[in-house]
């Protein structure tokens, strides 16, 4: 187990290294002059050259990369020869001249929004998806099962932006059940936080909830046909114990895995939800950075989200090994 853990962590580090190289090379070798993109309409040849120098874009790519990596571990300073050098402490992910802000600070501002969005949506989709799936499985073939599967199909086939717009139109504009969304931290104003987040949560959760209803139902039904469930009944265990301790334990294990990964990929779905509801999260930040060709910010966001996904993978695999004893040997 310890050896397995070490192997996985080393693999993770290697993967991150390769990823950082790829991202760096990709974004720096693309056609177009990154220095030209730092000043927009205000550009004059002097400003472009000055920015090129300040960003270190006049140096060879390899030097740029090592500076970048050094910055992550030891911090770095931008505009060293100017009167007001910008000191970026480790872990320094770069500086966005476009926003006049350190990349890490921009990400740190946006991350909590996305975090809360993801956590809320995750809880909704897991609780709704799994409980409805179990309910459908236990009532297989009955109207309960058919209703739930019908709901799942509808949720599955509606694009989330459409659901989002519908919700905004009816819940907010038409019936005024909720005020217009305006993000605040849950610690500052929990009521407004909930009022703002509930619709984005729903929009983000619908697709996965629909998917998990089906997944859970099929998984539980499959396990019900397994021989060890028959053994559990043959022992004379109460049906409740057979269902919870034997069937769900085995049936939900793969779902835990899938859920962990889907949570990481939720970041992708967050872009739509954040933009529809105007939430200042990572999704909005990423879209903005792309529209502004803000290379340092794009690089930083890409690396941070990739790290989260890779880390989630690791956690899920370890979790799986804890749940399923058969995995531990390997």
């Amino acid at each position, binding site marked *: 187990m310890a050896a397995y853990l070490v192997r996985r962590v080393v693999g993770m580090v290697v993967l991150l290294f390769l990823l950082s190289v790829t991202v760096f090379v990709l974004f720096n070798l693309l056609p177009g002059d990154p220095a030209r993109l730092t000043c927009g309409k205000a550009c004059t040849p002097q400003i472009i050259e000055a920015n090129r120098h300040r960003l270190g874009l006049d140096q060879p790519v390899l030097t740029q990369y090592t500076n970048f990596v050094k910055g992550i571990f030891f911090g770095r300073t931008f505009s060293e020869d100017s009167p007001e050098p910008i000191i970026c402490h480790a872990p320094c992910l770069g500086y966005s001249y476009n926003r006049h802000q350190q990349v890490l600070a921009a990400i740190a501002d946006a991350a909590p929004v996305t975090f809360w969005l993801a956590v809320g949506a995750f809880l909704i989709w897991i609780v709704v998806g799994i409980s409805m799936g179990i309910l459908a499985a236990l009532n297989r073939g009955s109207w309960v099962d058919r209703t739930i599967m019908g709901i799942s199909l509808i949720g599955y086939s509606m694009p989330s932006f459409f659901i989002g717009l519908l919700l905004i139109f009816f819940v907010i504009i038409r019936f005024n059940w909720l005020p217009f969304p305006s993000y605040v931290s849950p610690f500052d104003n929990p009521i407004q936080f909930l009022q703002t987040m509930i619709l984005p949560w729903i929009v983000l959760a619908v697709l996965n909830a629909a998917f998990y209803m089906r997944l859970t139902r099929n998984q539980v039904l499959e396990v019900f046909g397994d021989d060890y469930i028959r053994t559990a009944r*043959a022992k004379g265990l109460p049906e409740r114990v057979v269902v919870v301790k034997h069937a769900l*334990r085995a049936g939900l294990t793969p779902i835990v895995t899938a859920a962990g990964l889907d949570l990481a990929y939720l970041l992708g779905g967050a872009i739509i939800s954040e933009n529809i509801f105007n939430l200042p999260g990572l999704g909005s930040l990423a879209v903005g950075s792309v529209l502004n060709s803000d290379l340092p910010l794009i690089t930083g966001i890409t690396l941070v989200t990739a790290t989260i996904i890779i880390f989630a993978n690791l956690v899920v695999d370890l979790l799986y090994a804890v749940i399923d004893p058969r995995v531990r040997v390997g």
Partner: protein
Amino acid sequence: MISDGVITDSEVMRREAALDRQFLTVNDLAVAFPTEDGLVRAVDGVSLSLEKGKTLAIVGESGSGKSVTAQAIMGLVNRKAAKVTGEIWLDGQELVAMPDDDVQALRGDEMAMIFQDPMSSLHPFYRIGDQIVEAIRAHRSMGRSFARREALEMLRHVGIPAVERRIDAYPHQLSGGMRQRVMIAMALINSPDLLIADEPTTALDVTVQAQIMELIQSLQAEFGTTVILITHDLGIVADVADEVAVMYGGRIVELGPTRAIYDNPEMPYTLGLLSSIPRMDRDPNKRLDPIRGNPPSPIKLPKGCVFQPRCNYFERVPGGRCFTERPELLEAELDHSVRCHIPHEERQQIANDVLHALTGGPTPL
């Protein structure tokens, strides 16, 4: 000798006395699954009885309803998915009409079951010791450590080496034979009166098969357990069973003491089964082609005798009754019942000829 269906007074008295001793009696058991393709009559009119401590073997081809019969006795047939009718009397209690909770209380306590595939029959996520402890505590209020000690003792009893270590193993860490020993330990942990073993050795290596059968037999002798053994292996049956029920198409077609079934088989299907097993005393060159054709679909059973499409002798029955009329399971000899329209003496004659051709003499056990 008693001819078909005629019973004398003294015989009636003998039977009533025997009925009192019967530990398990099944009357006209039927299990039908409604499916999209139609009603699957998996078991249709099975009746049998068994004295305490005896062994009944149920034999028959795949799909003949052996497992469903066993699962119906155990109350393991899902009542939402199937219609179960008839009576099952276990030690004076009727199980078919009994509420689910009461049957559940008997399961694993009065009656227990082991299955064909010991790998998939144990839960992959729980240690074997914990699985046995769970079986104990399902029926007896006992502290964990006491139950664990009992589980340890039972595992040792079924011949698992280094039990102190093995008790904390997961099923995938044990061999097939060891797993089946664990299943046996788990089944017998609450000293059930009835043990149903559904092809307990089919999934195991040949060398291990004999060991597992020996274990079941010795534990049966020790605990006085009544055993129902479901198997394809007629070789095993001859060694261990007191009674044999031959199943075909969801019903019993021949039922009797093991000796009677082996020495004087009468139903053409039984004859086919017996002549298709290789035996030392037979000339291998004279082995008959087992039984031609395929088992009937339980959705569309033949109208007359369910065995008719595969029977070599239906022409002997006048008036085409084999096509139109289901034969009853009737007593041909003492405790030996047969389901066939051909008269008893003629059946014996046929059997003699067939077995004679195989061995050059009557089949010894």
